[in-house]
């Protein structure tokens, strides 16, 4: 099949065209919709490459990207005659009726599409496109009508305005508020003629805040000490202790890891491992624990490699922070390097914009953002910054991995642990020898293959592929060690490329369609006026500084809203990762801005902000039901009570480990992923390791994408490939099955039962201990009765089921303890 050009004079048609186009002006909605949905996408997709103003070479003199061009036709005459299928060349061409003119040449359109075109012509070919020519294929792309985005007008949207102070509202019940947060909240509740519910009980509150700040239940010792302390600042002291505990960083670090889509493997086509992702995880935990100011926290993650440093250790930490940009999921097996680079930059832009800015810039990759004032060229201005940076994530080149990269060697002077064991010099030499040997074999196989090809025979390509795989694996393995076989101190991260580049706007986001080049820069709508262009290097440093500055309208606001979400179960803006037009509006805009300003005024301290929120009376409300309030505000957007929340996956697992006395607070350095090493072999080693029970905190479990441990994945763990600021809380039978039947849960129940059994001499004492340990409170009389009933029935049942003579006591206590850990109360926070 080949397109054939036939020449026909088109002078007469030119004269006809205005008359025709005048005839069908003023389209009905239905006509426009038909065109936009059925016709335009096909024209763009199938015809514009050769028949539009933006085509490299317009074929046959025919342009189909304007109404006039379509009617005028090309060298063969008018492409269509409205209302007349038989005289419309376009229809004849797409029907493949004429051997000399079959369009599109690459393959016949589906019959349904041909039928659509016929319908369209019969309708009189209604065509809403105006203007003589359209220069840019993208302008006419897809179904969407292009409107020029008005940036100046866009800036008036609330989220693009800097946070502004509001006077603290006056409230009727002046004795209720403990501080400004409470005044903002109470004012809105009073506006509706409602009252907040009572305060939470002391035990309830202690349990709530201990889980919220550390992801663990309060120990019986802590409970006792707190109940004895009747001073007015007893609760504040508890809060300060929790904030000072390393458990805080482990739990709040995990919150950030949700947002940073933390994972230890590539996650897409070839799920190769990232053995050094854990360094970033540990950096986040440490940053939270030392209360690194949030603006600095962000700045280091985006450009830590470019910041000044005190010493090698400080420099290493800052480089590790940039792991944020390197740990994302990647299509490692993408064969087109340009496509891979664009995917990588896209993933970085998507993560950064949702996590720090709370907007979805990646929506502007293929076209101007449809809802927010972000033109496509802003996306590619940012893309230039990331394309000018080199992302280092490691992995071995192999048959399923076309896109390996280096890692960063931090060196011994960094003082960082390696995370895996070294090998002896002899082993290293042997490894090097195997690599040399493989390379020799490869060279020889190349020669054989070439000879075969010259002789017109088929080369043994499979052998060549196998050798490539082997060499990739061996050199990756060898690179982990220094000359003496000591483990190198490797990290993922980002560096600036020596020569920065600006990115073209890729039409429809397609790597094959580069358009106008745009200078590296930022998102215009987030600036009061036209943003500066990048002056230095990739622009990452300037980007980081802008993200971390008070002038950025969103950075502080998005983070305080996240903190609110993590403490209340719902953000002031419920769509925590999207503040744009398609996100939800803040329930308390003045409070949100107030918090953002306080956050910045207090040195961007996360701990201070958390402290302020949990010391508010609003946080300390009970979860009580109040019918009148519920009728007016069933979703509790007004915060008239504390919302009862599901304990998240990590806290549930950690709490089970803690109450059973099995929790190991001293995790092994690094990650099992690092010890498993890279590649398929690593994945294989890891797969066996993953089956073994683990006792360290959940934040230290290996997070291999698509292989997330069941204990986490069943309980709504964040998808490690997606930015997740607002985890779901589902309730599915698979969770119950896990808690009832899983072997590790039963093992922990046994351990808990042993503790319980040893805690007291008699059954009542043991039941008391079990309830205090698991639920942080004494059992009620009814619960004690239920426990007795259980023990007696259980013994009868089990006696029937088990062989005679065996001691059933341990099983009964284990089942009892398991019931407490699987109970709704254990799984929920009041």
């Amino acid at each position, binding site marked *: 099949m080949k397109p054939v050009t036939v020449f026909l004079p088109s002078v007469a048609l030119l004269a006809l065209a205005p008359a025709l186009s005048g005839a069908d002006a003023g389209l009905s909605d239905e006509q426009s919709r038909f065109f936009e949905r059925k016709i335009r996408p096909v024209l763009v997709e199938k015809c514009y490459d050769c028949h539009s103003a933006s085509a490299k070479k317009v074929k046959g003199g025919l342009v189909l990207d304007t109404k006039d061009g379509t009617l005028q036709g090309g060298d063969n005459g008018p492409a269509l005659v409205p209302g007349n299928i038989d005289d419309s060349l376009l229809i004849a061409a797409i029907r493949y009726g004429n051997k000399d003119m079959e369009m599109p040449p690459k*393959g*016949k359109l589906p019959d*349904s599409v041909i039928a659509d075109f016929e319908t369209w012509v019969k309708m009189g070919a209604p065509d809403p496109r105006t203007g003589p020519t359209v220069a840019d294929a993208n302008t006419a792309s897809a*179904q969407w009508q292009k409107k020029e985005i008005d940036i100046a007008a866009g800036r008036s949207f609330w989220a693009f305005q800097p946070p502004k102070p509001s006077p603290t509202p006056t409230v009727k019940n002046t004795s209720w508020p403990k501080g400004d947060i409470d005044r903002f909240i109470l004012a809105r509740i009073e506006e509706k003629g409602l009252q907040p519910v009572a305060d939470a009980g002391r035990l309830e509150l202690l349990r709530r805040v201990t889980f919220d700040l550390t992801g663990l239940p309060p120990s019986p010792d802590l409970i006792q000490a707190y109940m004895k302390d009747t001073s007015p600042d007893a609760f504040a002291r508890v809060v300060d202790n929790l904030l000072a505990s390393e458990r805080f960083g482990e739990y709040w670090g995990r919150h950030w890891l949700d947002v940073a889509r933390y994972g230890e493997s590539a*996650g*897409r*086509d*070839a*799920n*190769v491992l990232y053995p050094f992702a854990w360094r970033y995880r540990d950096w986040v935990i440490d940053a939270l624990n030392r209360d690194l100011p949030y603006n600095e926290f962000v700045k280091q993650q985006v450009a830590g490699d470019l910041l000044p440093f005190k010493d090698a250790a400080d420099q290493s930490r800052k480089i590790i922070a940039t792991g944020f940009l390197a740990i994302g*999921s990647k299509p490692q097996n993408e*064969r087109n390097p340009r496509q891979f680079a664009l*995917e990588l930059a896209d993933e970085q832009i998507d993560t950064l914009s949702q996590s720090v800015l709370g907007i*979805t810039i990646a*929506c502007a990759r293929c076209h101007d953002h449809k*809802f927010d004032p972000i033109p496509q060229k802003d996306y590619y201005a940012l893309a230039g910054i990331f394309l000018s940076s080199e992302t280092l994530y490691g992995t071995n080149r192999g048959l399923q991995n076309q896109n390996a990269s280096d890692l960063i060697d931090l060196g011994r002077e960094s003082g960082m642990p390696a995370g895996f064991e070294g090998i002896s010099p002899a082993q290293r030499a042997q490894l090097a020898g195997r690599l040399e040997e493989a390379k020799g074999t490869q060279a020889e196989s190349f020669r054989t*293959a070439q000879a*075969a090809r010259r002789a017109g025979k*088929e*080369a043994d*390509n*499979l052998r060549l592929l196998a050798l490539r795989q082997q060499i990739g694996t061996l050199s990756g393995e060898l690179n982990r060690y220094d000359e003496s076989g000591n483990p190198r101190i490797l990290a993922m991260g980002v560096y600036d490329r020596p020569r920065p580049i600006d990115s073209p706007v890729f039409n429809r986001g397609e790597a094959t369609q580069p358009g106008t080049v745009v200078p590296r820069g930022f998102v215009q709508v987030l600036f009061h006026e036209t943003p500066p262009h990048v002056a230095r290097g990739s622009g990452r440093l300037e980007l980081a500084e802008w993200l971390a500055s008070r002038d950025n309208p969103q950075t502080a606001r998005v983070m305080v809203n996240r903190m609110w979400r993590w403490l209340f179960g719902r953000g002031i803006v419920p769509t925590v*990762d999207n503040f744009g037009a*398609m996100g939800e509006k803040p329930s308390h805009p003045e409070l949100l801005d107030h918090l953002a300003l306080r956050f910045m005024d207090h040195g961007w301290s996360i701990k201070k902000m958390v402290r302020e929120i949990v010391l508010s009376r609003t946080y300390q409300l009970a979860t009580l039901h109040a019918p009148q309030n519920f009728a007016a505000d*069933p*979703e509790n957007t007004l915060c008239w009570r504390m919302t*009862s929340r599901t304990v998240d996956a990590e806290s549930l697992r950690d709490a089970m480990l803690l109450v059973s006395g099995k929790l190991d607070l001293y995790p092994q350095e690094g990650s099992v992923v690092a010890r498993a090493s890279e590649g*398929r072999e690593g*994945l294989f080693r890891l797969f066996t390791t993953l089956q073994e029970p683990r006792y360290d905190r959940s934040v230290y479990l290996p997070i291999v994408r*698509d*292989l997330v441990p069941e204990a986490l994945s069943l309980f709504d763990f964040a*998808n490690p*490939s*997606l*930015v997740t600021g607002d985890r*779901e*809380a*589902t*309730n*599915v*039978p*698979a*969770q*119950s*099955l896990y808690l*009832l*039947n899983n072997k590790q849960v039963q093992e922990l129940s046994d351990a808990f039962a042993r503790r319980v059994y040893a805690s007291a001499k008699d059954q009542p004492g043991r039941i008391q201990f079990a309830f205090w340990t698991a639920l942080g409170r004494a059992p*009620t009389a009814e619960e004690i009765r239920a426990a007795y009933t*259980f023990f007696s*029935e*259980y013994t009868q*049942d089990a006696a*029937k*089921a088990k062989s005679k003579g065996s001691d059933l006591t341990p*099983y009964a206590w284990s*089942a009892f303890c398991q*019931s407490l850990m699987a*109970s*709704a*109360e254990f799984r929920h926070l009041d």
Partner: protein
Amino acid sequence: MNMSSDLPLFSRRRILQGTSSGFGYLAFSALSTWAAEQGTAGGASPLAAKAPHFAPRAKRVIFLCMSGGPSHVDTFDYKPKLAADDGKESGRGRGGPATLLAPRFQFKQHGRSGLWISELFPNVANHADDLTLVRSMHTDLPNHPQAFSQMHTGTSQFVRPSLGSWALYGLGTLNENLPGFITINPPAQNGGAKNYGSAFLPAIYQGTKIGAAGFPGGGAGPGRRAAGGQETMSNISNPRYPAEVERTQLDFMQTLNRAKLQREGYDPQIEGVIQSNELAFRMQNVVPQVMDLAKETEATKKLYGLDNSATETFGRQCLMARRFAEAGVRFIEVSFGNWDQHRNLTADLERNCSAIDQPIAGLLTDLKQRGLLKDTLVMWGGEFGRTPHGQSGDGRDHNNKGFTLWMAGGGVKGGLSYGSTDDYGYEAVENKVHIHDWHATILAILGLDHEKLTYRYAGRDFRLTDVYGNVVKEIIA
């Protein structure tokens, strides 16, 4: 993008977050809107059966997924010219000249429709008049991970919900004592769990895995792993206590939960846990029953080839699929691996096909006998096909430009060959069907408009078919 459907769908995620699977939520005005929109009784759980967009042709799907890319020119795409031109040069080999390799097996016409099917499938061929061969399939990339992921989620570039998850999200399930989307023996490589994951859809729509998957990241290895070992569902049975003992334990737990609920007065989450516990308890009773093939007659077992070591494993899985279908599961996928014949094409194809031919034919016969075939869509195929030119003597390379999938049962015309590849089977040329079109067509058969089945995530409405997909109306009965 359908703006008119934004509002009700938008509220759905909030509902799922806020209400678990509890009841008594008519107070939520958003839910009433949603329930009204869905035509379900108010307050239904997110898994409750929902009204489709239009009259469905099939109620459920059994997808026989052949991972690795089975050769179409040796199985279902009859290419006499390829046989005639055996050994002639083809300029299309990877890294050098390659020669055309004639189909390794003979084709014959079958049934009244006269469909051409190779001798590898003598039993399936007896159902020729029930099959629609789509011989003009194509997909974007000739690599396993990408193509496998695209076949399941529509894309290889992003993490997106699986076809089965979309179907379950759109239609709910017919039996809430069972998972609504079950995948038997899914490969752990090529994206693993992602291929039956719900991505941004609520977790309740993800596929439930049955069977020990192979090792992750592993390529196709020979032998047993192709069909997996004995089938199990995670945590479905208690390793320690028999059911009556566990019931006593559960009673105690539920007493605690009800006491808690009473103290709270009103708490949908606690209600949800109580419900879920009961459902789990029923499931652990029901699922093993459905998976237990002991009560099937000898004749049925024989029908699926359970009496033969070559067909036993896949036969068992097909029979299990029928039992799940019968019990009301919406989407059932059964995987069979090892179709990546770069070499040993002849022997491997014989081995694979003889392992699946009898079970598949048995499944079709059995479904028909039970009156289930008329509303069950059965589909067979892999992520791509293979090249007409040979590789390493007796092998074929990956081919994404043209391959064959087939469909049978509810909603499709039988005895039909739709679309075609060129003379050698290299490239789809007539009535091309992209994976997106295939997805759109499957949803249409289930009564779902692929342009309307959307979910709001990260600021926009997502579809299985993204901005693509045309329903292949010609194959729908």
